């Protein structure tokens, strides 16, 4: 039975269901217990699971991220919540050096089944230090997986897959999406990591997005439809592994591709997808892949400036018109 629930509730269901099923799973992070979660994702979980499994930490990302990673070496399966992925930067050594490399540098002796999750990307006028989109930075590292769900259904299904995964999985959520509602099945189901989905079918141009940018793509596709341009929106859902086949299938159909990525353009997921599409679809492209990113500036505070910085619908429309020679 599916019912409509919020994105944050979908995340909570995923964690609670997995914690009921597996005592090795615990949730740790700032304000996850007593406070019910800074963004209420873990609301009520302390009550159900108690303070031994829902664990408040000091403001000490390097410490508790490392603690989580260390505990995986003895078989636990932690969920580490970063209040914001912006704060994960101080734990970069732990989450990039230890988690994804443990298996390799121990020659297969110690894996790292851990989930790091939290808000990523511009929240709303949070300024430069709190508006990080870490996906392009972190996706560069082999050994980790990365998921960025765009809707409650995928959020629950992907997070459950992540918790069961034997590798470190980075789950990037958006503060702007936590209140979005959507149909979510009750009970157990998973969305496999590494499978993209066609969010909307179209014929004239492929829009590749993930997370919040799927909504920007939707707005743009609506506007472009009025101009007679039919966009196909592909929701990547997983960044690592990347479902390149799905992207290629769509681009081979439309011959045009615009990648929408909310991180900066330089050495980014957008540039990675573009490079792969250029290689795989070379003879099917009628124009080079166009990319829409956050502007190459630190996130500003001012509302209008922030909106302009984002990979918004206007920029996507411009890119689609340009890539299809309708500019």
């Amino acid at each position, binding site marked *: 039975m599916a019912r409509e629930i919020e994105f944050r509730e979908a995340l909570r269901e995923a964690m609670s269901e997995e914690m009921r099923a597996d*005592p*090795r799973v*615990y949730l740790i992070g700032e304000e996850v217990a007593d406070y019910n979660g800074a963004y209420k994702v873990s609301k009520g979980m302390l009550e159900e699971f108690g303070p*031994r*499994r829902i*664990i408040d*930490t*000091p403001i*000490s990302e*390097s*410490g*508790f*991220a*490392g*603690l*989580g*990673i*260390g*505990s*995986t*070496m*003895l*078989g*636990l399966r932690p969920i580490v919540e970063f209040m914001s992925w912006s704060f994960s930067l*101080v734990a970069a*050594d*732990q989450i990039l*050096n*230890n988690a994804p490399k443990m*298996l*390799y*540098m*121990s*020659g*297969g*002796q*110690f*894996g790292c*089944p851990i989930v790091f999750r939290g808000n990523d990307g511009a929240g709303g006028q949070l300024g430069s230090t709190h508006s990080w989109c870490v996906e392009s930075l972190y996706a560069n590292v*082999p*050994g980790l*997986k990365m998921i960025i769900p765009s809707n409650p259904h995928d959020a629950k299904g992907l997070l459950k897959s992540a918790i069961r*995964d*034997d*590798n470190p999985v980075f789950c990037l959520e958006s503060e702007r999406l936590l209140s979005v509602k959507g149909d979510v099945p009750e009970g157990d189901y998973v969305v496999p990591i*590494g499978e993209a989905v066609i969010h909307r079918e179209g014929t004239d141009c492929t829009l590749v997005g993930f997370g919040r940018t799927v909504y920007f793509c939707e707005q743009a596709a609506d506007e472009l439809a009025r101009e007679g341009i039919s966009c196909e929106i592909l929701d990547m859902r997983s960044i690592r*592994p990347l479902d390149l086949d799905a992207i290629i299938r769509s681009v081979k159909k439309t011959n045009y591709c615009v990648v929408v990525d909310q991180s900066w353009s330089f050495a980014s997921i957008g540039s990675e997808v573009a490079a792969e599409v250029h290689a795989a679809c070379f003879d099917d492209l009628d124009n080079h892949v166009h990319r829409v990113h956050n502007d190459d500036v630190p996130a500003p505070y001012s509302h209008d400036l922030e909106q302009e910085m984002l990979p918004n619908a206007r920029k996507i429309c411009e890119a689609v018109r340009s890539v299809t020679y309708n500019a």
Partner: protein
Amino acid sequence: MSTTETANHVVENTVPVPDPEVLKSWLRDMLQIREFEVRSMQAYQNKLAGGFLHVYNGQEAVAVGCIAAMRHTDPVITAYRDHGHALARGLDPKIGFAELFGRIDGCAKGKGGSMHFFDRNNSMFGGHGIVGAQCPLGTGLAFATKYTEEVIKGGTSESVTACFLGDGALNQGSVHEAMNLAVIFNLPIVFCVENNRYAMGTAVGRCTASGNQITNRAVAFGMEARSIGGMDVIEVYREMKEIVDQVRATSKPYFVDIDTYRFKGHSMSDPRKYRTHEEEQEFEADDPIEKLTRYLLAQKAMTEEELKSLSKQVRLEIREAVNWARQSPVPDISELHHDVYADTWGDYTGTSLPGYMNPATDEDAATGEASNGS
């Protein structure tokens, strides 16, 4: 017998000195570590070993004494100067050399190198390369034993984690975060600071506030702490035994400042211009191996002949280990893409344990007795 000044008070140590046979096994362990390091340096200069090499000469009493005070299932984790701990924990030296030489029979199949001696069978959770980064991991190990024993199994916490770090790590934020977490979560962990007086080439006093009494760091966290000598394996053992037993009983962390000395440089490329030859000679005269030897001879627990025979035996064992490791094949190129992910995905081709951990496939390695440690 010995008294140890802690941060606040003087404690009488009541741990008895172990039997001579135990002491002889420690001597053997320390000799093995020393000989392993000597041959490692030789191998490095012969280009058999690459990368960085940080040897443990002079600090053997610390690893051997500390680990002797623990149970074999108690987790041990350390930084990059990790050969001694792994050997003291029971890693077969030939597996260690194979790792140093980048061979498939190494403990990390040649993918880790000198800084990453892992040995799951012996509760050795690695050598870690980034200074201080092993401390949050160590708290995680302590958290995991406690969680498993109390939350999952519903019993009481009974494991103790030893997290080794150098004096240079004391100024890393992650170490402080780990200590704070260990205190507020009541984690059964001992932070064993191997205070060899130099953070690479920088003397403790030049880079560490209140460097003359580093236990002050622990006091600030409300953590019990003491300073002990690190050149006498008996002392190290007796102090650590007391500490480990206490931590096992209380499930509260402990901080121990172990005074020791690194006979060689930070790494193989270190000309040691930051300290005097006289200083080095002074500490070399305090060699922990000679100290234990003298003790055993004085106690008539061992004859000169026995000592010679033991030394020779260890030298032979290490020579054979080197030769064995030299025969080990370099990893197949397919190993490059192996062990990146725990499951099969994309170009990556799954994972498996190192050969020596799998008796079915490597009988020779599996039967190599854990002749040291525990």
